[in-house]
């Protein structure tokens, strides 16, 4: 554990170097060639993605950076998700930036630095690296959200994101200070005095009850801070404005990357720091956490889906829908916590979250690429009414967006349906535990919300196919974006029909999770 083990950190080192190459190449390229940097980024990230997919899932946890960095199955899985997200963001940004005509070098290097932060987030093993990695992600995304500097909405999005982000960061630090105060340790796993690997959760479990209370208070505050990152109700207020104001590719990046980063950290904290209660021991405190998260998950589900119904702007609608999806992902967290409170180490909730995120990347990205193509890189026609008659104007675009919307709603046999199915079944499994029968209510809420979300997603589809087009202007589908969108849709269908290998990949993360 006391070694730098640089070879484990090669993906992050590669990313930083790629960012620097883009930044420097920007200075030497002719102005009209600078927009090709998007293809450089996509290419560089594709190499990284191939490399990650070729890496076998580690069977034991390996540590690097003097025990502050962990290379395990979950980290590898999430890095694959992030690399794919990065490629898709780069592809959809290239045309967008050419149209907007501002600083591709800075834009793409910031995207890569944000990805570096997300990669680190996936591998952190201590609170200090956790904090700086998450701040790296937030800072880059804030700048990207405000990138259309002459656009008032974009500026508003940036300011709101940075202020809410700063507050969340403050809360997280506050929580970390309490945990450090109670345990005297910032690392999640570390070498004990006897040379054995110790989990911070074991340290917490062995504390006196007063200190245990202090640590659990710390978790609660820390998780509130993370709640802002994943946009859980009641920490969601920034979402609609930021999603609407940010440039569309950045909104896509936010909705997938930033959310996934937040969930990784919640999972890390819960699996490594919250103690598993031994049978017969006092489980009141962890039990309280289960109730708290169940409440947040329920509120997030209903708020996100109900508030999406009256929306007139597709980007705002996607913002509320992403709140709803955060609610589904929280179901998995509740399941894991309930298992911990009952003294079981089953973590099917985590593999359900992993599968859901994997499916969510392609679904959401297909939708956002469709929006970028439709608006032709401008930001002035995001009203849902503008999509009227899209089925006649651009049949392929309308078909792809319809499939993406159906998958978001959770229609079988698409990927989104099985994502929701696994999350709800993880909750049902947790409801079998003694004293947790009430979790079935949460499972029912999840099922009801599928129906609610179906309504507003289908309203968009209805406009595309049932109404007459308001303009006859042909829609030009740039080939790279079209290929990326179709590839995403194909994957959405393939993941839905042949889930086997993907489920296997998602359950593969469990083996090395709790060490």
């Amino acid at each position, binding site marked *: 554990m006391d070694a*730098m083990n640089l070879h484990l950190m090669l993906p992050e080192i590669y990313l*930083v170097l790629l960012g620097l190459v883009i*930044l420097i190449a920007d200075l030497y390229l002719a102005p009209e060639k600078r927009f090709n940097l998007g293809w450089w980024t996509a290419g560089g990230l594709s190499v990284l993605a191939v490399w990650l997919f070729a890496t076998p899932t580690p069977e034991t946890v390996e540590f690097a*950076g*003097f025990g*502050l*960095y962990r290379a395990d199955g979950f980290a590898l899985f999430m890095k694959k998700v992030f690399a794919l997200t990065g490629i898709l963001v780069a592809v959809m940004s290239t045309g967008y930036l050419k149209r907007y005509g*501002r*600083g591709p070098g*800075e*834009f793409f*290097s*910031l995207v890569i*630095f*944000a990805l*570096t*932060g997300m990669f*680190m987030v996936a591998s952190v093993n*201590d609170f*200090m*690296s956790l*904090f*700086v*990695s998450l*701040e*790296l992600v937030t*800072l*880059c995304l*804030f*700048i990207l959200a*405000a*990138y259309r*500097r002459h656009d008032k909405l974009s500026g508003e999005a*940036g300011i709101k994101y940075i202020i809410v982000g700063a507050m969340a960061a403050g809360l997280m630090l506050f929580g970390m200070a309490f945990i450090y105060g109670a345990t005297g340790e910032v690392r999640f796993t570390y070498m004990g005095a006897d040379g054995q690997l110790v989990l911070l959760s074991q340290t917490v479990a062995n504390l006196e009850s007063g200190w245990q209370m202090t640590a659990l208070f710390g978790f609660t505050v820390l998780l509130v801070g993370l709640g802002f990152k994943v946009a859980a109700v009641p920490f969601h207020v920034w979402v609609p404005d930021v999603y609407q104001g940010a440039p569309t590719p950045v909104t896509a990046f936010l909705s997938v990357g930033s959310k996934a980063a937040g969930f990784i950290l919640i999972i890390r904290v819960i699996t490594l720091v919250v103690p598993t209660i031994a049978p017969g021991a006092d489980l009141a405190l962890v039990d309280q956490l289960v109730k708290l998260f169940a409440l947040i998950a329920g509120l997030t589900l209903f708020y996100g889906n109900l508030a999406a119904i009256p929306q007139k702007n597709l980007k705002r609608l996607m913002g509320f829908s992403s709140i709803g999806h955060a609610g589904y992902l929280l179901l998995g967290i509740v399941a894991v916590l309930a298992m911990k409170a009952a003294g079981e180490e089953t973590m099917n909730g985590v593999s359900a979250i992993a599968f859901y995120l994997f499916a969510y990347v392609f679904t959401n990205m297909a939708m956002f690429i469709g929006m970028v193509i439709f608006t032709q890189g401008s930001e002035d026609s995001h009203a849902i009414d503008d999509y009227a008659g899209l089925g006649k104007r651009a049949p392929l675009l309308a078909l792809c967006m319809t499939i993406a919307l159906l998958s978001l709603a959770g229609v079988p046999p698409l990927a989104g349906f099985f994502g929701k199915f696994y999350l709800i079944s993880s909750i049902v499994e947790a409801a079998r535990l003694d004293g947790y029968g009430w979790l079935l209510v949460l499972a029912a809420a999840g099922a009801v919300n599928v129906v609610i979300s179906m309504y507003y997603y289908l309203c968009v589809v209805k406009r595309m196919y049932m109404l007459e087009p308001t303009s006859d202007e042909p829609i030009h589908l740039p080939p790279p974006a079209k290929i990326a969108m179709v590839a995403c849709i194909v994957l959405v269908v393939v993941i839905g029909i042949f889930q086997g290998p993907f489920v296997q990949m998602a359950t593969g993360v469990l083996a090395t999770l709790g060490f």
Partner: protein
Amino acid sequence: MEPIFHDLLAAGGGHAVAFYACSAVTIAAAILMVMKKNPVASVMWLVLSFIGLAGIYVTLQSYFIAVIQVLVYAGAIMVLFLFVIMLLNLRREDIAKMELPKVPFAGVIAAILFFVSVFLVIKASTPAFEKPVDALLGEPALAGDSVRAIGIPLFSQWLLPFEITSVLLLAAIVGAVALTKKKL
């Protein structure tokens, strides 16, 4: 109050004199900073207050923190403040017009909080006064070689967060340019 002060001086000798001198400078400069109407003058008094604080660190034998205090706060951050204030280019008439809103209620609450905190500080620090001040000042937080004590862990055990911070700062610089430059 007076005999205690006298005893302290007697017990601590030169150390205590330096400590109280630095404290007096810090507090006086801080008060003047608030009182001055001209923002540039305020900033200058704030610099003096920071230097006094650095002096207190020296008497506590935390030389490294003292140097950092001067470099970072009295140096870099104050230059930043000065630049911002000079760029704002406030004229004398504008300053004369600036008046704090009169909210008596807020003033009363602030005064109560101030006296409560003074009371708590005095109450909490009485046991410390029982020690001879020399012994108190002679206990450095980090033994002797404080640069070494901070530097070696920072560049070995905690290198990873340090390196991530460097990427963070690079991203911040790129962002500052990207958001402010007219033509990119």
